[in-house]
């Protein structure tokens, strides 16, 4: 290739990749900040808002992606790739910026969660239209036998977007105080998006339409009805189905396992400190990202199928050993018994258990409803390896009665606490404790501080019935362990995540070129976008929820290897995809439409 044409394609790659990376950033920033968003927009005491929360955080963004693929894919095949993926960029950037501007639930009530849900839907639609456009645009500029290499740059953008989103959040948290971040700082990553989108829009605006599409359009060879031609035509539909079941379905679950499930596993199953997980994952992504280009380039030499199928096969056979090793690395029992050769055995308690009493309501809330009183006991264990585990045990006691104050004459105002303890057989038994009665007429309602003080005094004096130390130990306590990993263990964990990212690069690096080559120019945008977003948005996007369901079910059933059960979903899907891909995908397919 001449230096002039190489320069030209680098401009195409830069313009396309930057915009696509920003779209992935926008999409993932929502998921990464889901916990903060839920406190601002989705109060749990409002069932409708809670329903919207579940929809917005769990389903909307992913499920709507195939619809975006159809809608924008059709536009891309009718009016052109360039204009369509510029529209998706603006929609995504606008929606992300506006999420950062929505007043909280306390300010505008039900409108807040509704607006967030609508904007999240727009994000999903935009993403559904963006990827196919960018991949097609780059592929249609790339020389015939180098499509794998050039489109692999687009493939780096999803991981790069996730990486940038993690880094922006870490940076914002680092600059601002914890209070400032929770108050308004969480909006900053959303606002930043608009600047990136403007830059990307200006760059894309000056680009030319795809030469292949422009030629087809000038010759009148574009489709009149791309959706009908793609899915109502037996010849094309069989390739759409083959792309889905033989490639994108497996690729989607490998992608989400290697990055999102690994993150979720470290945070919720291994209980590693959230910021440390972000850092560990960030390092693994940084080391792994160049391999998208390596495998994209290699796919031009040895074929897309060989690399993608190898990635699927490795994932099928190695996921369970990898996750077993990850779990063992931070398993306190294994560390204490010296069962893990990497960790030096031995531990010591570095801080004695300390109990504090706190409430889960704001101190400015004068009328306290449904308040929780938490008895929090904390202790730290330091292992010889340098790993520090923070143990937090939380006993929760609920106020049975609202603290609205009855001002009628001779009215009796009482505060009752309700809590549950396990009896000798392990059954839960409800208890009630009256903390205070006969509050003075005309007095202001009790404040949080008052409740804490009353409860603390009675708790310390042993006056709270049935709350002896022995009983508290047997209560249904929520025990959390927060771990900070150090030394060799940290690097071994990074290696294990990196290996998963490597599988991702094998299946994902060549797939854009694979999909583009499968379909003819006139219906390419539509035909390749749908299997891609069904595979990634539906099969991949639902992975965390389905896998978590398997884990919790196995844990409830007492399965000692409960933490591995969530892997059956990606393993099963990847195995079926591997078999279909191996048998039905033919190398000749890629030459059909060139």
């Amino acid at each position: 290739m001449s230096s002039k044409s190489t320069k030209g394609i680098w401009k195409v790659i830069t313009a396309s990749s930057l915009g696509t990376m920003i779209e992935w950033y926008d999409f993932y920033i929502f998921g990464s900040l889901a916990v903060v968003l839920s406190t601002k927009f989705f109060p749990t005491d409002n069932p409708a808002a809670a329903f919207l929360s579940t929809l917005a955080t769990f389903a909307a963004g992913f499920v709507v992606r195939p619809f975006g693929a159809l809608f924008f894919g059709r536009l891309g095949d009718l009016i052109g790739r360039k204009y369509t993926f510029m529209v998706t960029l603006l929609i995504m950037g606008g929606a992300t910026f506006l999420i950062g501007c929505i007043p909280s639930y306390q300010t505008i009530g039900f409108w807040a969660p509704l607006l967030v849900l609508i904007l999240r839907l727009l994000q999903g639609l935009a993403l559904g239209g963006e990827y196919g456009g960018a991949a097609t645009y780059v592929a249609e500029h790339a020389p015939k036998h180098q499509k794998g290499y050039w489109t692999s740059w687009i493939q780096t953008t999803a991981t790069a977007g996730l990486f940038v989103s993690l880094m922006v959040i870490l940076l914002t948290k680092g600059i601002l105080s914890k209070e400032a971040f929770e108050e308004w700082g969480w909006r900053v990553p959303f606002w930043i998006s608009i600047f990136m989108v403007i830059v990307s829009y200006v760059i894309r605006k000056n680009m030319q339409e795809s030469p292949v599409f422009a030629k087809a359009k000038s010759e009148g060879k574009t489709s009149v009805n791309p959706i009908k031609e793609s899915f109502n035509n037996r010849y094309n539909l069989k390739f759409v189905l083959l792309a889905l079941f033989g490639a994108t379905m497996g690729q989607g679950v490998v992608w989400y396992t290697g990055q999102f499930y690994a993150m979720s596993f470290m945070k919720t199953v291994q209980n590693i400190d959230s910021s440390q997980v972000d850092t560990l994952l960030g390092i693994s992504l940084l080391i792994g990202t160049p391999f998208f280009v390596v495998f994209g380039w290699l796919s031009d030499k040895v074929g897309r199928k060989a690399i993608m199928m190898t990635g699927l096969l490795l994932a099928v056979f190695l996921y369970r050993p990898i996750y077993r090793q990850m779990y063992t690395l931070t398993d306190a029992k294994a560390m204490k018994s010296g069962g893990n050769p990497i960790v030096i055995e031995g531990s010591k308690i570095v801080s004695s258990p300390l109990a504090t009493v706190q409430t889960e309501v704001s101190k400015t809330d004068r009328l306290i409803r449904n308040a929780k009183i938490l008895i929090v006991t904390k202790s730290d264990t330091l292992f010889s390896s340098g790993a520090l585990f923070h143990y937090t045990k939380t006993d929760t006691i609920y106020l049975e009665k609202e603290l609205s104050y009855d001002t009628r004459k001779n009215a009796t105002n009482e505060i009752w606490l309700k809590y549950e303890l396990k009896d000798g057989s392990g059954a839960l038994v409800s208890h009630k404790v009256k903390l205070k009665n006969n509050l003075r007429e005309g007095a202001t309602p009790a404040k949080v501080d008052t409740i804490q003080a009353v409860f603390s005094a009675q708790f310390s004096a042993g006056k709270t019935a049935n709350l002896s130390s022995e009983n508290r130990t047997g209560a249904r306590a929520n025990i959390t362990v927060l771990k900070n990993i150090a030394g060799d263990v940290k690097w071994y964990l990074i290696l294990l995540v990196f290996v998963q990212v490597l599988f991702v690069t094998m299946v994902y690096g060549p797939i854009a070129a694979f999909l583009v080559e499968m379909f003819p120019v006139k219906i390419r945008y539509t035909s390749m976008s749908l299997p891609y977003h069904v595979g990634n948005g539906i099969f991949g996007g639902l992975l965390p929820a389905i896998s978590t369901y398997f884990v919790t079910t196995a844990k409830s059933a007492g399965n000692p290897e409960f933490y591995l059960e969530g892997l059956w979903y990606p393993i099963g899907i990847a195995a079926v995809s591997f078999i279909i891909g191996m048998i039905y995908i033919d190398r000749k397919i890629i030459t059909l439409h060139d």
Partner: protein
Amino acid sequence: MNRLKKYLGIVWILLAMAVSYYFIGIFGSKLTSGRQEDLVFGIIIFFILLPLIVTGLLIFGWYALTDEYKD
């Protein structure tokens, strides 16, 4: 290879049926548990993921059986 492609079509059709039976058995309770998260999860499983897998595999299997993927 063409014969293998063709007769595996039966496997994909049977797999579609097995998946629907398995999903109903495993996730069926989600729709009736009364919990908000379960309901959303159940709706997505039964009205999006399951129809996609079952319909897609049935058509794919049928195409394989009728030699659409023949070399």
